[in-house]
C-alpha cells in the first residue's frame, strides 16, 4: 500500500505525515507540487503548513499548483484523500470539500490538545473508529474557523458529512463545532486538527496512561489502508 504526501512551498508537516504513514504500515511516497505525477500511489495526504505563506487566502495559491489537476481527478475517481489543516484549506479552495476556513474568532494562532468526537465512521479515513468515539488530536492553526452557507451546513448535517466535531471547547468559532468534513462519496476528508501528530508514543498529546502517549491519529491512516484493502 503506497500513500503519497505532497510537499508544497511552505508545507511544514509533510515529513511528519510521511512518518505517520509508515507508522500505520504503509509505504510513504514524497510528491512534489510542481509535478503532474502521482507516482501511482493508492491514497494521498495534503499536509499542514503555511503554503505560500498563507498569502491571498490560506491554501488558495497551492490549490492551483500543477499537481492539483491530478489530485482532483484522483479524488473524483474515488482515491482516498486526506487534507490536514492547510491541506484541508486547499481541498476547500479546490472545491473538493464544501465551505471555507477563516481567521480564528479570537484572532490568534492556537495550539492545544483538542478533544474531538468522531461523527462519521463510514469514510475512507475514519472507518476504524467507533461512532461517537472521543479522541484527542493536536490542533495548531491561525485560520481554522469553519464557515459555510446555511444551506450547505444544513445539507452537511442532513447527510452526516460532518466527520469530526470539537468537544468541550470550540477553539476557533467554527459553525456547529465542525472540525472536519467529508465529501459525498466519503473518500475525501479534511480537518483542522493534526492526526499525524498523534501517531507515535512519546510524541503525541498527553493521556491518562502517560505523558505524550496519545496515538488516536494512527486510526486515520490504518482506516485508509483498510479501505484500500477492502476495495
Amino acid at each position, binding site marked *: 500500500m503506497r500513500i503519497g504526501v505532497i510537499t508544497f512551498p511552505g508545507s511544514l508537516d509533510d515529513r511528519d505525515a510521511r512518518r505517520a504513514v509508515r507508522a500505520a504500515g504503509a509505504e510513504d511516497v514524497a510528491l512534489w507540487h510542481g509535478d503532474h505525477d502521482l507516482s501511482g500511489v493508492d491514497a494521498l495526504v495534503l499536509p499542514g503548513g503555511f503554503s505560500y505563506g498563507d498569502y491571498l487566502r490560506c491554501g488558495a495559491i497551492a490549490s492551483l499548483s500543477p499537481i492539483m489537476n491530478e489530485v482532483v481527478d484522483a479524488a473524483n475517481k474515488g482515491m482516498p484523500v486526506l487534507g490536514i489543516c492547510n491541506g484541508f484549506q486547499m481541498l476547500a479552495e479546490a472545491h473538493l470539500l464544501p465551505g471555507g476556513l477563516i481567521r480564528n474568532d*479570537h484572532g*490568534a494562532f492556537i495550539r492545544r490538545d483538542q478533544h474531538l468526537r468522531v461523527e462519521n465512521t463510514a469514510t475512507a479515513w475514519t472507518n476504524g473508529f467507533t461512532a461517537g468515539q*472521543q479522541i484527542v488530536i493536536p490542533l495548531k492553526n491561525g485560520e481554522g474557523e469553519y464557515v459555510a452557507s446555511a444551506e450547505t451546513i444544513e445539507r452537511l448535517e442532513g447527510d452526516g458529512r460532518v466527520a469530526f466535531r470539537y468537544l468541550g*471547547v470550540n477553539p476557533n468559532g467554527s459553525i456547529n463545532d465542525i472540525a472536519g468534513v467529508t465529501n459525498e462519496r466519503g473518500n475525501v476528508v479534511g480537518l483542522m486538527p493534526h492526526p*499525524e501528530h498523534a501517531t507515535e508514543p512519546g510524541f503525541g498529546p498527553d493521556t491518562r496512561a502517560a505523558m505524550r502517549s496519545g496515538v488516536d491519529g494512527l486510526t486515520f491512516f490504518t482506516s485508509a489502508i483498510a479501505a484500500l484493502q477492502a476495495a
Partner: protein
Amino acid sequence: MTEPVNQPPANRQQGTAPEASAAPVASGLDTVENAAATPDKEQPYATLGLKDDEYARIREILGRRPTSGELAMYSVMWSEHCSYKSSKKYLRQFGQKVTPEMKKNLMVGIGENAGVVDVGEGWAVTFKVESHNHPSYIEPFQGAATGVGGIVRDIISMGARPVAVMDQLRFGKIDEPDTARVVHGVVGGISFYGNCLGLPNIGGETYFDPVYQGNPLVNALSVGVLRHEDLHLANASGVGNKVVLFGARTGGDGIGGASILASDTFASGGPTKRPAVQVGDPFAEKVLIECCLELFAEKLVEGIQDLGAAGISCATSELASNGDGGMYISLDDVLLRDPTLTAEEILMSESQERMMAVVTPEKLDAFLAVTAKWDVETSVLGEVTDTGRLIIDWHGERIVDVDPRTVAVDGPVYDRPVAYPAWIDALQASSASTLARPDGTTESGTAELRDQFLALVGSPNLADKSWITNQYDYYVGGNTALSFPDDGGMIRVDEGSGLGFAIATDANGRYGQLDPRQAARLALAEAYRNVAVTGAVPAAVTDCLNFGSPENPEVMWQFSEAVEGLSDACLELGIPVTGGNVSFYNQTGATPIFPTTVAGVLGVIDDVARRIPSGWQDAGDNIYLLGTTREELDGSAWAGTVHGHLGGRPPVVDLDAERRLAELLRAGSLESLVGSAHDLSDGGLAQALAESVLRFGVGARVWLSEIVERDGVDVATALFSESTGRVIVSVPREDDVKFRGLCDGRGYPVLRIGVTDAAVGEQPVLEVQDVFTVGLEELRASHQATLAEHFGPVVGQGAAQEYYTPGA
C-alpha cells in the same frame, strides 16, 4: 592573475564594468578616485554612528577619505552590535578559560555564526541565542519576528537543519498600558514567524519588571542538527569561485539597523527609528531553509554566510576575511525590491531572508537549478580573488576598495572606563532577612503563608504563561520529547536510536542588579540544573549578555563582572561557551536595565525515551527534596512580590554540588528510578510544588518539619528560599530503597518530604501539612488568571480536564 573586473561573472551585463576611470563628477558617484581627489569633503560619519577618532582611523587605514560606500560599510561593521568593540576585551575569556577536555566535543567554537557540538553517532548540534531588543520595542511584531528569522539563518549557515526555537522575553510592568502593546506584538511576531517556519518552540522565559519598560528584551535562540560531514563555514576560498546572493530581494528596510538602532539608546523626541526595523517574510525563509538544505545535500556550496546585521557589507567582508582575502562584487547585480536604492543603501540594507554562498564555477549551473526549483531568486555578484582587497563596482565605477579585514576583523577595540557602582554597597546591605516573615507555627501565620503562596503563584513572573505558549506550535517536526512548561525542552535527533538533546535557558535580572558576577553564575547553574532534571548530560553553553550603555563606567563594571563570573563558572562545570551575543545600550534615558545575563545550556541524551518530566504523573510516589535550604531570600520572588523589596546578596552557588546533583539525576534516569524532577529556583520549594501539581493535575501531601529541623530554617524560609542545588523528584515506591541508596552513595543531601496523589473528595489538593491546603481548582485559578486579565482570555482555560483522556 588577471584583474577580476576583466572577467565579469557570467550573468552580468557586458560593458557595465569598465575600468574605474569614468569622470566621477559627471556621474555624481563618490568613487575611490573621487575620494582621493577630494580629501576635504565633509562626511556624515557622526550621523552614521562613527566617532571622530574612528573616522580618523578609517582615513588612516585607507590613506585617503572613505568613499560614501566605504563609509557606509565601516559604519555598520564598526558598530557596537557588529564589532563587539566594547566587549571584545572581555569576551576573550570564553575562549581562554577552557581545558582540552572541554574542547573535546566542540567541532566549531566561538567566532563562527554558531558553535557546533558533536553529540555522537555522527550527529552534531549547533545552537545560539541572540538579542533583538531595540527593534522589538519600536515595532514589536516585526522586531520579534525578524529576531527569530535572524538566529535561524545563523543556524542554516552552519549547514544544519533548524529544529527548534526558544525565546527569552522581558517586558515592563504588567499593568502599564504600553506593556500590552509590546507583549501582543512580540508574542504575535514570534508565533507568526516561528510557526510559519515549522520550528517547534519548546521553551523560554517571560518576566515583567518596570526596569524593562522602555527597553524590553527579546532574545531568540535556535538549535539545528547536522551530520558531521555537512558542516559548512563562512569563508570565501578558491580564487575564481563565484559569489552568489540568493533569497529575498534587497529593499530599503533595516538600513543602518546595526548602527543607529542596536548601538544607541532611545532618546525621546528624536526622529522615529522605525525605518531601521526590518520586515520579515517567514514564507521566504522557509523556502530558503529547504533550498539551502538541498544545496548542502548535493554539496554545491563551498562557503556560506547569512545576511543579517549590516547585510551585504557584513557578508562580503566576513566571507573575504575568512577566506583567500579578496573578493570582487558588482553591486549592479543585486536584485532590488526598490530600484531607487543608492549603493550605500544597498550595502547597509538589512532586508531579511537573504544568504550569500561561494560556489565553484563547475557547480554554478547545478546550484542555480536548485534555487530555481524552490523559486528562490538568485544573482551572481562576483568572485573570490587573492588580491587581498574587497572591491565593489557600481554603475561601472569603483566605489569600494578596501582590505576586508579592516572592515570585518580589525575594527576598533575599546578598553572602556570601569567604575564600581557607588550605590551597590547600600543595596547589598539592605537584606531581605529583615523583612517580616509569617510565623508558620501560629494559625494567623499559616493563613498568611497560604495567602503569600497564592500571591506568588499568581504573580506575573511565576504565573501560568499559556496565554503566550498556546500561540506556539511545539508539535511540528514530530520530534519534541519535552517542551514548556517542563524545565527544559528536548528534541529527538535520531529516530532510530532515540539520540536527542535538551536545552534550557535562564537569567535573573534582579540578582544581576545585586551582584552581576554571582547572577551570571546562578543563571548558568540553573540552566545546567534544568537540563540535568530532564535526564540529559549538560554539554555546552550559549549566552546573551543584555546590558546598559557601555559608555557608562558602572555598566562596564557590571559587564566585566558578569563575563568573568560566567566564564569562570563554565570552566568549573567543564562546559564550554560555543557562541553568543552582547546587547548594549539597553536603557531608557539614563537608567540602564538590570544586568541580564541569559545562559543557555545544551545537554545530550542517548535516548529521549528516558526523559523526565517536571510534574507528578502517578499516585503514591514518594517525593524527595535533594539539597539543603538556607535562609536565602535576598532578591527572591517572595521579597519582590510580598514586600516589593530588592536588596541584599543573591544565593550562594556551589558548582561542584551542581555537578554532583546532575550526575545523581542522570544515574536515577538511567536506572528509571525517577518519575519526575523539577528544579527549585524562583519562588523556591512552594512554586516548585505548585507547578508539579499543575503539570498533570496530580495532588500531593508534603511535610516541611524535617527540612525545618535539619536545615535550621523557619517554615516561610523552607517554602520561599531560593537556595541553589535543589531539585524535587518523585520516585515510585518500589524504587525507594534503590533511590535512597543512590543518594547516600553519592553523599547528596536528601529528605523524603511527601507523597503524591492527595485529594479531598474528588479534587486533587496540595496539602502542606500543618501549614495549608489548596485545592487544584483554586491553585489553577490563581496561576492562570494573571496573564488572561492583562492580555485577554486563553481559549479553553477553565474548561474541564486538560490531561485526562475521556474513556482512556
